[in-house]
C-alpha cells in the first residue's frame, strides 16, 4: 500500500521534506541544541505554531474534505490540553509538596502528600477535596490516555446526537458553537473541578525534568510537535486518499447521492468528526505545555472560528493549505499583536497594529472568502500547473446542498 500511496500523493514527500529541513534549521539555530541565534521564547512560539498546524489539518479534514464546518474543534484542542495539564500540574505540584514536606522531622505519608497537592491546586478556588475528575491525574499512564479518550467520547456522543438528527450545514455549525460555549461556561465555574477561570498553570515544567533548562525543553517539545505534525499529516493524507476520501468528498458535495449509493453517511461523519477531534486533542496536549497555562478562555467559540479562518486563508481541501494557513496567520498574528509591526502615522491618527490587527484580519478574511476562495494553497496549485477544470457545479464544497437538498427544489 505504502508505495503507491506515497507515489499517488507526492505532496506528502514534499511536505515531510520541508518540515524536516525547517526543524533541522530551527534546532541548529536554537539555544538548547544549537548556536543560540533563536531565543527560547520564539522556539516555543514555533512549537506552538506546529501544534496549531496539526489542528488545522484536522479542521481541513472535517471542513475542507467532508464539508462539516465544525466550530468546536478548538474545544477538543483545549480539552486535550486540560487532560495533559491535569497530569503536569499534579505531578509538578507533587514534586514541590514532597520537597516541602521532606524538610520536616517526620517523613510524609502518601495521604499527606495527596492532601498537600490538593490544597496547593485547589486552595485558589476554595476547595479542599480532590474532585473526582482528578482521580487519574497522579499517574501519567492513567491520565494521558484520557487526552484521546475524553475528547473522543465527547465528539462521539455529540456527533451521534447531531448527525443522527440529520443536523446539517449552518445548523451544525451553530450547534457545535453552542457545544463549545457550553463547555467553556462549564469550565468557568469554580466547582467544575478544573479551577474555574484560573485554569491550570505551570505546565511548562516537566515533572522529573526540573534540572533541564527551558531552552532544552522547548526544543524537545518543538521536535515532538514537528514529529506529531508529520504523523498527523500522513494519517490525514492516508484517510483522504482512496475510496474513503472519495466518500468524504462525496458527503461534502452531495451527501444525499452518497446515501443512495448505500453509504451510511452518518457513520462516516461520526467517524471523521471523532477522528479529527482526537487529532485536535493531541495537538492541544502538546500545545499547552509549551504555552504553560490553560484556562477556559481558550475554549471561547471565537478560537474555533479563528481555526476556520486559518484553514480558509490557507486553502480548504488541501492539507498543505491548512498547514500554511495556520502557520502564516498565527505567526503574523503574533508579530502584529506582539507590537513588533511598525505603527503607521497618518498625521491625524496613528495606526497601532496591536489595535488594528484584528480589523485587518477580519477584513482580509472577508476578502479571501470573496476573491480567493482557494486561499494561499490555490497559489501553489497555479504554480504546480494543476489545471482547474472549467466546469459548472459545486465549486468549493457544500453550497446549498448542505442546507436545502436539491431534490426539494425541483
Amino acid at each position, binding site marked *: 500500500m505504502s508505495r503507491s500511496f506515497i507515489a499517488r500523493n507526492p505532496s506528502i514527500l514534499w511536505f515531510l521534506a520541508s518540515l524536516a529541513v525547517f526543524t533541522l534549521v530551527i534546532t541548529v539555530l536554537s539555544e538548547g541544541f544549537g548556536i543560540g541565534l533563536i531565543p527560547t521564547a520564539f522556539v516555543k512560539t514555533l512549537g506552538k505554531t506546529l501544534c496549531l498546524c496539526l489542528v488545522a489539518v484536522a479542521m481541513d479534514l472535517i471542513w475542507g474534505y467532508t*464539508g462539516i*464546518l465544525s466550530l468546536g474543534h478548538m474545544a477538543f484542542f483545549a480539552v486535550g490540553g486540560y487532560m495533559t495539564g491535569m497530569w503536569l500540574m499534579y505531578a509538578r505540584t507533587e514534586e514541590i509538596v514532597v520537597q516541602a514536606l521532606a524538610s*520536616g*522531622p*517526620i*517523613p*510524609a*505519608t*502518601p*495521604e*499527606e502528600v495527596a492532601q498537600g497537592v490538593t490544597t496547593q491546586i485547589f486552595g485558589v478556588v476554595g476547595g479542599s477535596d480532590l474532585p473526582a475528575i482528578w482521580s487519574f491525574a497522579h499517574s501519567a499512564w492513567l491520565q494521558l490516555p484520557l487526552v484521546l479518550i475524553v475528547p473522543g467520547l465527547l465528539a462521539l456522543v455529540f456527533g451521534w*446526537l*447531531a448527525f*443522527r*438528527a*440529520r*443536523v446539517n*450545514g*449552518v*445548523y451544525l*455549525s*451553530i*450547534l457545535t*458553537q*453552542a*457545544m463549545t*460555549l*457550553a*463547555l467553556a*461556561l*462549564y469550565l468557568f*465555574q469554580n*466547582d467544575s473541578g478544573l479551577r474555574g477561570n484560573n485554569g491550570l498553570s505551570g505546565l511548562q515544567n516537566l515533572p522529573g525534568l526540573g534540572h533541564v533548562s527551558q531552552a532544552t525543553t522547548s526544543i524537545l517539545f518543538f521536535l515532538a510537535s514537528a514529529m506529531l505534525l508529520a504523523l498527523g499529516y500522513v494519517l490525514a493524507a492516508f484517510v483522504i486518499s482512496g475510496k474513503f476520501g472519495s466518500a468524504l468528498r462525496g458527503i461534502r458535495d452531495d451527501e444525499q447521492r452518497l446515501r443512495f449509493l448505500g453509504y451510511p453517511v452518518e457513520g462516516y461523519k461520526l467517524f471523521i468528526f471523532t477522528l479529527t477531534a482526537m487529532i485536535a486533542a493531541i495537538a492541544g496536549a502538546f500545545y499547552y505545555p509549551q504555552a504553560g497555562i490553560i484556562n477556559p478562555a481558550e475554549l471561547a467559540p*471565537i478560537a474555533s*472560528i479563528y481555526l*476556520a*479562518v486559518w484553514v*480558509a486563508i490557507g486553502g480548504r481541501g488541501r492539507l498543505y493549505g491548512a498547514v500554511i494557513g495556520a502557520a502564516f496567520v498565527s505567526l503574523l498574528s503574533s508579530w502584529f499583536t506582539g507590537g513588533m509591526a511598525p505603527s503607521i502615522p497618518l498625521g491625524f491618527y496613528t495606526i497601532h497594529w496591536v*489595535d*488594528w490587527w*484584528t*480589523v485587518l*484580519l*477580519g*477584513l*482580509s*478574511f*472577508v476578502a479571501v*472568502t*470573496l476573491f480567493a476562495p482557494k486561499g494561499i494553497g490555490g497559489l501553489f496549485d497555479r504554480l504546480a500547473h494543476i489545471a482547474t477544470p472549467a466546469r459548472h457545479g459545486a465549486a*468549493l*464544497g*457544500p453550497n*446549498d446542498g*448542505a*442546507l*436545502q*437538498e436539491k431534490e*426539494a*427544489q425541483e
Partner: protein
Amino acid sequence: MFRLLLPLAVALCLGLPGFAQTLPEILSLERAKIEKPSRQTIGPVIDAITATGDPAAAALLRAWGDRHLGLRKSDGAFFVIAPEGAGWALTAPDGTSAGLAAKADVTELKPNAGVRELIAAALVQFTLSDPDPANRARALDAIAKSPAASQLEPLRAAIAGETDPALKTRKERLDTFLTLQFDPDSAARIAAIQRLEGDTALDARGALNPLLLTTRHAATALPSDENIAAILPADLPGAYDLLVTAGLAPARLTPKDQKDALAAHLRDGAVAGVPLADLATQSGRDKAYEALEQSGAVPPAATDAEVAAALKSHVFYDAYREKDKGVTDAARAALASIDTKVGLMTATDLGLDALSLASIYFLAAIGLAITFGVMRVINMAHGEFIMMGAYTGYVVQQLIPNYTISIVVALPLAFAVTFAAGVAMERLVIRHLYKRPLETLLATFGISIALQQIAKNIFGTQARPLTAPAWLDGQLAFNDIIAISYIRIAIFVLALAFLAFFLWLMKRTRLGLEVRAVTQNPTMAASMGIDPDRINMLTFGLGSGIAGIAGVAIGLFAKVTSELGSDYIVQSFMTVVVGGVGNIWGALAGAAMIGGFQKGIEWLNPANTLAAQTYMILFIILFIQFRPRGIIALKGRAAGD
C-alpha cells in the same frame, strides 16, 4: 378624649402626690430623685414627665439621657447645658436661653446606664406621639430596626392616639411583631402570630423566622426543659465535634497533632522504637503513637471504637431558642402557610422574569430570524449590529443630555445606522456568497471581529453607560415578591410592538408579499417582476435595523461594551434554531422557551448562572434530536428536506 385621659390615668395609677401636671411642677417636686436617680425609683418620675405631654419634656429627657442636663445650684432649676468657654451655656427645657454659668455653679447630672435605658424607652414613646408625623415615622423605623421588649408598652400606648391612618396601620403591625416576640403572655403571642398567617410581606417573615431559630446540642439524655425542634441521628456530620465542644468526649487526634506529637518524641531516628522510615505510612504512625500512649508520654486519643461508642451513648438534637412550644408551633404553622403563598408568588415573579428575558431574546433574535429565515443567510455580525445600536444610543446621549429625548432620537437613529450598515454589507459581501451559507457565515464573522475591534478602538474597552430616563427607573412592585422593573416592561412592550409591526409588514404590505414570494421561490418571484436583489437588500437592512433598535433596548440595562453583541449572538441563534426557521412565531416560541428554560434552571440552582447556561445549551442539543427543524417547522417539500 382618650388622649387627654391617658396621662391622667397614668398619673393616678402611679399614685403621684397631688395632680402636678405641668413639667415645672414635676421637676420641682421630684428634684431630688432626678438629681440622684436610681433604676428602682425613677420610673414613675419619668412616666410623669412623659405624661405632661409638654414638648419641653422631650427636650429635657433627651438632654438627660445624653448627660447634658444640669442643675443650677442657686435655684434648683434644670437646664440643658453645653460647654461654653470655661463654663456652661444654659438653655431652659422650653428652649429659652438662660445665659452662661460657671462650672462650679451647675451640677452635671450623670444618670447610670439603667436609668438611661428607661429614659430612652420613654423617649421612643414620646416621639411616637410627636406632633410631626415624620418624627413618628422615624420612631417606628427605629423600632422596626432594633425591636426591644421595652418598646412594647410605649408603642401600644401610642396606637390609640394616632390620627394618621397609614401610621396607625404601621403601629398596629409593629405591635403585632413586638407582641409575638416579647409579650409575656403566651396566648397573646400566639394570637399575634396567627394574625400573620398567609402574610407574604418580607417583614412578617422576618419577624416570624427568629422564633424558629435553633441551636444544636449534644447531651447524654434528652432534656425536658428544652423546646426540641428535632432529634438528630448520631451519624450526622460534625456530631462528634459537638460532643467534644460540650466536653462530653475527648478530642479526636488530628493527623497534624499526631505528627507533631511524634516529632516531639523523636529520639535517635526512631519514635518509641518505631524507625523513622516506617513513619511514612499512616499505620506506622498509629503504631508509634500507640506505643507512646502506653508509655504515658502522650495523652490517649479517642480511637474509632471510642468515637462510635460515644456517638451511640449520646443524643443530638436541635432546640429552639424560643422556649415556648405553643409559640414555635404557631410560628411554624404560620410560616408554612406563608411559604405556600410565597411559592406561588415566586413562581409568578419567575414567570415575569422569564417573560422579560424572552422579550430580550426575541428582540435580539427577530432581526436574525428575518435574515436567516427569509434569506437563508447566517449573519454572524448580527451581534455587532446590536452593539452598534447600543453605541449609537450612547453617542446620542453624549450630544443630547435629556435622557427622554435622547432615547426618542436614538431609536430611529440606531435603526438608520444599522440599516445602512446592513445594506452595505449585503451589497458588498453577502450578495456574492448566496447559496454558499458556510462561507457567508465565515465572511460575516470576519466583519464581526473587525467591527468589534473598531468599536474597541473608538470607545475603549471599558463599559459605557446608556442611562434610561428617570421615568423608566424603579420597578413596578405588586408586593415584596412580585416586582418587575419598568425597563423590562418597556422592553416587553417593545418586543410586542415589533411582533405586531413585523406581522403587519409581512401580511399586509406589498413589501411583505414580495418578501414571502422571494422566500418561497426566488426564480418564480423574479419572473413575476419582483426584483429579488432589491428584496434581499431591504430584508437584510430591515433585519439589521431591528438589531440596532434591540441594541438600544439592551444597552439600557446592560453595560455597553464592544462585546455586547457576542454575549447575545449564540442565544439569538439558539432562539432561531429552536423556534424554527422562516417563521416569526417560531422566533417567538424559541425565545419564550429559551427564556423560560433559562430562568427555570436558575431557579433550581440560583447560585450558578453559568451552570444554567451550560444546561440550557445541553438541553437545546437534546431538543434538536426531537425537533430538528425547530418548534414551528415548515413541513414537507417546502422545508427543503
